[in-house]
C-alpha cells in the first residue's frame, strides 16, 4: 500500500522541481495543489453567507477527489544484501534530551528515538497498522474488553541481569502511575484500587475503567517501554541516573557527554535475535541546516527531521535515501479554552478564519506538505471529507471579532482582540512563523509574541497558562491513543487535554470507538469526532507533519525490524524507528 512506484515517482518529481524552485525558479509543485486551487476559486467567487460557501465547498469536493492528495510515504526497500555485522551508526537528533526514563520523563521525538535503542515496548505496530505483541508474547481481552491479560516471554533479562517478569512490569507500571506528569496519561484509564493484577511470573491482568478493545496499542510507545526495576529504584534516589537507562533493548547504554553524544553498544544477547551494528551514537544538533550538511559530508549516517527545506534539499541528493511519512501527527495552533479570550467560541472561530494557512504552507513548508483540516489524512478510513477548516478567510473573521469586542471591551483594544502567541525557541523558523501569523491576524488581533525555551513552553501548555500556542500532536496509528489529549478526565491542575475543553459527548464517542471491534463500526464515530473538533474551533490545523528519516548510502535495512513471530514492524512512527535490523555496508 505504501510502496507503490507511483509515489516514488511523485517524490522524485517533487524533488526535482523543489531545487529549481529554491533557486527562485519557475516551477512549483505540491501534492496539495488541489487545496490551493479550490481555495482560490472559492475566494474569487464571493458569496455572502457561509451556507452558500459551504455548498460551494461541497461542489468542489468531487473535483478535489480527482486530484486527491497522495500521502507522502516512502519506506526504504527491504535490503536484498546479506547483513553485515559491525560498524557504528551515527544518528543526528533535533535536540538534546535530559533523561530517558520512561517512567519519569515526558519524552519527545528525540527522546523516543533513543528509547527505541535501549528499550523494547510490550507491543508494536506492524506495517498494516495492527497492534502486535513485541516484548510481550500475547494479549487477550476479556469478553467485555475491560480486562486484558498479558503473557510475557520467558527468559528475557534486562541489561543489568534483572529478569523481565510481571514483577518488573508492575514496578514500571506503578512508577508511571505515580509520576505526577506521566501518570496523567495512566491514572484516568485504569481501575483506581487495582489497576493491575499479577497472576504469576509471566501473566498479569490490566483492569481498565472503560471497555477498550484496542487497548494494547497503548503499550506501543513510552508507556510500554520496560525498564529495569533495579534501575528505576536507583534513579528515584539519584535522578542523574535518568541519563543512564537500563532496558531490554538491542543496545546497551555505554556513555554520554551532554550536548555532544550519547553512545549505546550492541546487546549481543538480545532476546529478539541478531543485532548487526556494534554501536549507535546519537548526536544532538539543533540547527537543521547544520545537521543536514553534516549528513551530506558523511559526519552523520542518519537523521530524523521535519524541516521541509532540509527534506527538499536532501531529496535531490542521490546518496541520500529518505524514509518519508506524513500520515502521523499534525502541526497546528492550539487555543486555550479555559482563558479569555479563547473561552469564547467567536474568538476561536475568528482566529481560525484569519489564520494565513496558505502562506504558512507556501513559505514555511515550500508547498510540499499536505494541508490539514482534521487529525486524519485523506487515505485513512476515518477521514471525514465534509470537514473543512475555513482558514484564509479574513472576510469571515471581521464580524465575529466585532461581536466579541462589543461584548468584551476589556479584552479588546482598538476593535481588535488582545492575544498572546507562544512558541518554543529561540528559533529562526519559529520567529518567521510568529511573524507570518501575526501579519495574517493583524487586522483582527493585537498579538504579543512570547518565546520560551522548550521546557517552559511545555510547562505553560500543561498548566493552561497560554493563550495560543504552536503545537504538534495526534496522528497515532490507532486513533484511540489520542484520547489522552481529548478527554474530560485529562483536565486537572496539569492537563494533558491542553485546550482544557470538556465535552461529554465527545468523550462518549471516543469510548464507543474504543469498545468497537471493527473498523466499520469506528468510521462513523471518528468522523463525528472530527466534525466536533472542527466545530469547536480548538485547533487551527496547518499541515500533516512530514517526517523524514534521511539515510546515507550504506545504511541498510532500517525498515526491516520484525517481531519474534516474523511480522514486519511499521518502519517509522513520527520520526521514531528501530535499530535492531539496521546494518552498515561500509
Amino acid at each position, binding site marked *: 500500500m505504501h510502496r507503490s512506484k507511483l509515489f516514488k515517482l511523485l517524490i522524485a518529481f517533487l524533488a526535482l522541481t523543489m531545487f529549481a524552485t529554491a533557486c527562485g525558479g519557475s516551477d512549483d509543485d505540491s501534492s496539495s495543489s488541489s487545496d490551493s486551487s479550490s481555495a482560490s476559486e472559492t475566494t474569487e467567487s464571493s458569496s455572502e453567507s457561509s451556507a452558500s460557501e459551504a455548498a460551494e465547498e461541497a461542489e468542489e469536493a468531487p473535483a478535489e477527489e480527482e486530484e486527491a492528495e497522495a500521502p507522502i510515504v516512502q519506506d526504504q526497500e527491504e535490503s536484498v544484501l546479506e547483513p553485515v555485522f559491525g560498524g557504528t551508526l551515527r544518528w543526528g537528533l533535533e535536540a538534546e534530551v535530559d533523561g530517558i526514563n520512561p517512567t519519569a520523563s515526558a519524552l519527545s521525538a528525540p527522546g523516543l528515538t533513543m528509547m527505541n535503542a535501549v528499550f523494547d515496548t510490550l507491543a508494536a505496530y506492524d506495517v498494516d497498522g495492527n497492534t502486535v505483541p513485541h516484548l510481550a508474547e500475547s494479549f487477550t481481552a476479556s469478553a467485555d474488553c475491560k480486562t486484558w491479560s498479558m503473557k510475557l516471554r520467558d527468559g528475557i533479562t534486562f541489561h543489568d541481569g534483572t529478569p523481565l517478569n510481571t514483577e518488573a512490569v508492575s514496578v514500571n507500571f506503578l512508577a508511571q502511575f505515580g*509520576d*505526577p506528569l506521566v501518570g496523567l496519561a495512566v491514572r484516568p484509564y485504569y481501575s483506581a484500587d487495582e489497576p493491575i493484577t499479577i497472576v504469576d511470573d509471566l501473566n498479569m491482568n490490566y483492569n481498565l475503567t472503560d471497555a477498550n478493545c484496542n487497548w494494547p496499542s497503548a503499550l506501543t510507545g513510552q508507556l510500554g517501554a520496560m525498564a529495569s526495576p533495579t534501575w528505576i529504584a536507583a534513579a528515584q534516589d539519584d535522578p*542523574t541516573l535518568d*541519563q543512564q537507562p537500563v532496558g531490554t533493548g538491542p543496545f546497551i547504554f555505554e556513555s554520554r557527554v551532554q550536548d555532544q553524544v550519547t553512545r549505546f553498544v550492541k546487546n549481543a544477547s538480545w532476546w529478539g535475535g541478531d543485532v548487526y551494528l556494534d554501536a549507535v551514537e546519537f548526536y544532538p544538533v539543533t540547527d537543521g541546516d547544520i545537521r543536514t550538511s553534516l549528513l551530506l559530508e558523511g559526519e552523520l549516517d542518519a537523521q530524523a527531521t521535519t524541516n521541509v527545506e532540509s527534506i527538499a534539499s536532501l531529496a535531490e541528493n542521490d546518496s541520500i535515501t529518505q524514509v518519508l511519512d506524513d500520515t502521523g501527527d499534525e502541526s497546528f495552533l492550539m487555543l486555550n479554552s479555559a482563558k479569555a479570550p479563547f473561552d469564547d467560541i467567536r474568538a476561536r472561530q475568528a482566529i481560525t478564519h484569519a489564520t494565513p494557512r496558505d502562506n504558512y504552507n507556501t513559505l514555511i513548508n515550500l508547498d510540499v506538505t499536505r494541508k490539514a483540516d482534521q487529525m486524519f489524512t485523506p487515505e485513512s478510513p476515518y477521514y471525514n471529507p465534509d470537514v473543512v477548516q475555513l482558514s484564509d478567510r479574513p472576510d469571515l473573521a471581521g464580524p465575529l471579532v466585532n461581536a466579541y469586542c462589543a461584548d468584551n471591551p476589556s479584552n479588546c483594544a482598538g476593535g481588535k482582540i488582545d492575544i498572546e502567541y507562544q512558541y518554543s525557541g529561540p528559533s529562526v523558523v519559529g520567529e518567521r512563523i510568529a511573524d507570518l501569523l501575526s501579519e495574517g491576524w493583524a487586522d483582527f488581533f493585537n498579538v504579543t509574541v512570547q518565546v520560551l525555551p522548550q521546557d517552559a513552553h*511545555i510547562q505553560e501548555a500543561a498548566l493552561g497558562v497560554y493563550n495560543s500556542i504552536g503545537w504538534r500532536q495526534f496522528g497515532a496509528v490507532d486513533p484511540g491513543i489520542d484520547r489522552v489529549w481529548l478527554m474530560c478526565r485529562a483536565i*486537572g*491542575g*496539569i492537563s494533558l487535554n491542553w485546550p482544557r475543553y470538556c465535552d461529554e459527548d465527545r468523550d462518549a464517542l471516543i469510548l464507543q470507538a474504543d469498545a468497537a471491534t471493527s473498523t466499520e463500526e469506528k468510521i462513523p464515530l471518528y468522523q463525528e469526532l472530527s466534525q466536533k473538533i472542527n466545530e469547536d474551533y480548538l485547533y487551527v490545523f496547518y499541515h500533516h507533519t512530514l517526517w523524514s528519516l534521511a539515510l546515507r548510502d550504506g545504511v541498510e535495512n532500517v525498515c526491516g525490524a520484525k517481531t519474534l513471530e516474523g511480522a514486519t514492524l511499521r518502519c517509522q512512527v513520527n520520526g521514531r524507528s528501530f535499530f535492531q535490523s539496521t546494518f552498515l555496508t561500509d
Partner: protein
Amino acid sequence: MLFFREWGKKAVPKPIRRLIGLLGLLTIVSMVTFGAMNFLGDPLFNILGPVAADVDNPESLKAIEEAKAQYHLDKSLPERWARWAWDFVRGDFGVQFSSSGQPPVSDLIKERLPRTLELMAVAQIIAVSLAIPWSVLAASRANRRTDKISTITAFAFVSIPSFAMAVILFYFFSVQWDLLPDTYTATDPFWGISHDHRLIQLILPGFTLGIGSAAAYQRLLRTDLITTLQQDFILMAKSKGVSKRRVLYSHALRPSLFSMITLLAINIGFMIGGSLVVEQFFRIPGIGSAVVEATLREDFPVVLAIVMIVSAGFMVFNYLADYLYTLIDPRVRNEDTSKPRKITSMGM
C-alpha cells in the same frame, strides 16, 4: 578609625589590598547575580516543571517538598546565597536545575571551559600574528598612502560587530569558497590540517574573534613603533648599515610592544565573556554558549558558576595588565604625554 586605616595601609602591602578588593568585588557580583536570578525567575518551576504548580495532587506535593528540601528553597535569600557561596569556594558548584537528571555543574564546566580557552588561544595568536607585520608595514610607511589605507582598514574592522564578521567570514570561506569547515566537532582531534581537526575548525571563529583585536593592537603598536623609530639608537643602527628589515623587527619592535602586551592581557580577560556570539554562531560548545543556554533555561547554578568564572578571569587578567603597566608607569610619569589614548568598554 583613621588610625586603623593608616595602619592597615602600611601593614598590608598594596598588591594584597588589591587582591582583597578583587575578592570583595567578586562577592558582590555573585550576590547581585544570585539575587537577580531568584527575584526574576522561579527556581522551583525550573527544577520541577509544571509539577511545581500542581498543588492539588499529592504526588506533586511530595515532589515539591523534596525539591524544596534539597535546594533549601524554604530558607531566606541571604541564607541561600551563603550556602551557595560556602559550597562554591570549596569547589562544589552544585547540580544543574533540570527536571530530569541533574548532572553536576562542575562536569559541564570541565567539558566546556577548554573549548573556550582553545578558541581564545587561536584568536589571540591570529590577532598578534596579523597585528605585528601590519603595524610594522604601516609604521615604516608612516603617513603615506599605505599607512592611511591600513588605518582606514583597521577602523573598518573595529566597526564591524562580531556577529556580522562571523556571517561575512562564514559566507566567503565556508559557503562560497569552501576553504574552511563549517562545523566544529568537539570530539575531533586537535592537531592536524584537515577539516576534521579542531585546529582548522577554529580558524574561522578565531579569525572572527581576533580580527577586532588585531586592529586594536595594530593601532597601538604602530603608534609606538613610529615613536621608537625616531629614537637615536635606531638612527645609529641604520647608519651602521643594518638592513631596514632587521632594524624594524630586531631593534624597533621589542621596545614598542609594551602597550600592545598590556592590551593583550586585558583582551584575554574580555574574551572569556566576549566569545558568546562567536561560540553560538559556530556552534562551539564553550562556556559562552553554555551560559546563553543556561540563562534561557533559567538554570541558575550554571549561570552563577560561569559568571563567577568569567568575572574572576576578567579580573585576574586585568590585574596582570595593571602589573605590566606599572612596570612602565614610572617612566610614563616623566614623559611628555602628547596623544590621547582611548578605549571604551561596556564590557562587550
